[in-house]
């Protein structure tokens, strides 16, 4: 009896996610395919066939473009390899027709995805089905239909890919999401910055502010409808709240003589936690958006900054240099001294709690290099995922399995760009942007 593929893949993924002792041993899934080899953290991608979705009327280029985006999403994870159509033996000519599984087995496709697209006026319908080729069955829950306006065709493609990824890996999807970031231009000593938002894969860029004043470190609200960021528009750094739909913005907590920065939402979206500097000393505060009530959460002469809530809202992870070098601490959401969790060599900053609650991502600086890393919430199992002249500011994909961050090159011509990596350190890649970019922040999965 062949185990369901999903179960196998889950097992392999779990192995890839850090059961280190087993990672060096090649793992043969079964006597029959699928066969995925894991070694030194490298997994052979699963062969998958996604023939161009069928045009069921008026779909024109949409069917081909949607197929292209689905393939790009899945291949982009590093877990899948699409078998090109030139290698296909049989053709899918009807969405509801039979599938000659032998033909797909023959080319070693482990999953087959068929789809169909129809367009009527500005309405588009996309349906798809994912098959376990070796069992000759539909993957449970992987036969769906999405309908909406043609404008949303890319989002529908991402939703198709999210379902397939999720069914096969057992992880949540993350393709149907947006990323807010800082678009940069100009020389290093006169950098112009403006807020921009894009699909997770770099498509559909829209600019939210102009470049007239410095903007830093935007963060999405838990529902993706608002953005917090730091702006120099008033002349001084101030946290600003923007409504994404209307682009209306307001400055939060204007206290003269202070500087506010590093804001983040609470998981319920009702509270903002941030750093407030007064007289040279930076502490962490929270502000209730409904009542306007300001609470001081830390009270120390050291720098306390970069706060991030746990997904249940009960704790805050933050950065403090109270011991002389920046390290990571966790305190109750109501404030307090906190308990240090970072213990290795070097300086730790920008901690971000995973939406899954299991890891904290951070920036580490050691011996002149920067790293993006993850550790358990008690500081154990620290794992550095990247290394470069300057990597900083990780943000979690909605499924808590992929991180995006800023990488900046050195020297006078140094430029920032956006990169992503998964939490095993695999699949490091640059996100395509029109120009230099920094400070990415991932949205939740879109509804």
């Amino acid at each position: 009896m062949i185990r369901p593929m999903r179960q196998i893949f889950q097992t392999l993924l779990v192995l890839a996610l850090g059961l280190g002792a087993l990672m060096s041993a090649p793992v043969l899934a079964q006597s029959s395919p699928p066969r995925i080899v894991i070694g030194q953290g490298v997994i052979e991608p699963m062969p998958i066939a996604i023939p161009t979705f069928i045009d069921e009327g008026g779909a024109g280029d949409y069917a081909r473009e949607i197929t292209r985006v689905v393939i790009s999403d899945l291949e982009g994870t590093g877990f899948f390899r699409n078998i090109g159509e030139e290698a296909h033996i049989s053709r899918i000519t009807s969405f509801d027709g039979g599938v000659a599984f032998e033909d797909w087995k023959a080319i070693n496709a482990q999953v087959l995805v068929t789809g169909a697209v129809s367009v009527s006026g500005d309405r588009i319908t996309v349906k798809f089905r994912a098959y376990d080729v070796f069992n000759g069955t539909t993957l449970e829950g992987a036969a769906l239909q999405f309908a909406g306006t043609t404008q949303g065709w890319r989002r529908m493609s991402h939703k198709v890919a999210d379902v397939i990824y999720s069914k096969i890996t057992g992880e949540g999807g993350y393709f149907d999401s947006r990323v807010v970031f800082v678009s940069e231009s100009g020389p290093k000593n006169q950098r112009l910055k403006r807020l921009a938002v894009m699909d997770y894969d770099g498509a559909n860029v829209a600019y939210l502010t102009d470049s007239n004043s410095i903007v830093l470190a935007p963060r999405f609200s838990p529902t993706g409808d608002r953005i917090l960021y730091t702006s120099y528009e008033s002349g001084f750094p101030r946290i600003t709240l923007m409504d994404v739909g209307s682009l209306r913005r307001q400055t939060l907590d204007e206290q003269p003589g202070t500087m506010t920065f590093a804001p983040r939402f609470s998981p319920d979206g009702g509270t903002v936690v941030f750093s407030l500097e007064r007289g040279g000393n930076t502490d962490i505060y929270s502000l209730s958006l409904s009542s306007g009530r300001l609470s001081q959460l830390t009270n120390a002469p050291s720098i306390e900054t970069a706060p991030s809530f746990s997904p249940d809202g009960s704790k805050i992870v933050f950065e403090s240099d109270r011991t002389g070098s920046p390290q990571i601490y966790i305190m109750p959401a109501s404030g307090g001294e906190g308990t240090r969790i970072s213990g290795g060599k070097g300086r730790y900053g920008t901690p971000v709690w995973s939406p899954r609650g299991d890891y904290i991502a951070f920036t580490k600086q050691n011996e002149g290099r920067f790293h993006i890393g993850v550790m358990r919430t008690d500081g154990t199992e620290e794992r550095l995922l990247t290394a470069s002249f300057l990597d900083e500011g990780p943000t979690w994909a909605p499924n808590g399995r992929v991180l995006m961050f800023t990488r900046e090159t050195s020297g006078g011509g140094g430029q920032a760009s956006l990169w992503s990596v998964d939490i095993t350190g695999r699949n490091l890649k640059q996100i395509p942007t029109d120009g230099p970019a920094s400070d990415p922040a991932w949205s939740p999965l879109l509804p």
Partner: protein
Amino acid sequence: MSLAAKSLLLIAVLGLAACNNPDRYGAGAGGPGGAGGAGGAGGIDTTGLGDPNNPTSIAYFNQRVGDRVLFAVDQSTLSPEARSVLAAQANWLNQNPGYAAIIEGHADEQGTREYNLALGARRAAAVQNFLISQGVAANRLRTISYGKERPIEVCSTEACYSQNRRAVTVLSAGAGV
């Protein structure tokens, strides 16, 4: 003074500060280190620099007195050299009461954005506190941190980093409050 009157005064002070936007680096502003035109939010304010031979000019302050002090890595402690420059700044400010100053704190690029913002603020405050201790009225001084956003030197070696870990006293004429 009543609380309401105090609030009004605060608002008035804020108003002044807003007119005199300290962000020399906004679009439309001159290059970094170009003392003078404060052009936040695309606006252009004009400030005469004067002749460096005129001891009451901004040019004299910037060039002869010295408008900046430098810091060690991660530090906001004032070195003996820095104290000497700041004592001269304080002396000049005390003799030229018609000027106010924004103290900009900066960091080098070795560090995260958030930490460097806080570090820059610490440096600016160290300078502010020293100037106040030398008799400069607190209400003539404000601070701002740019973190690592505005390096003056762009190379990625200590030669540049040491120049970027700085606090710069930026004068504005006629804005004494």
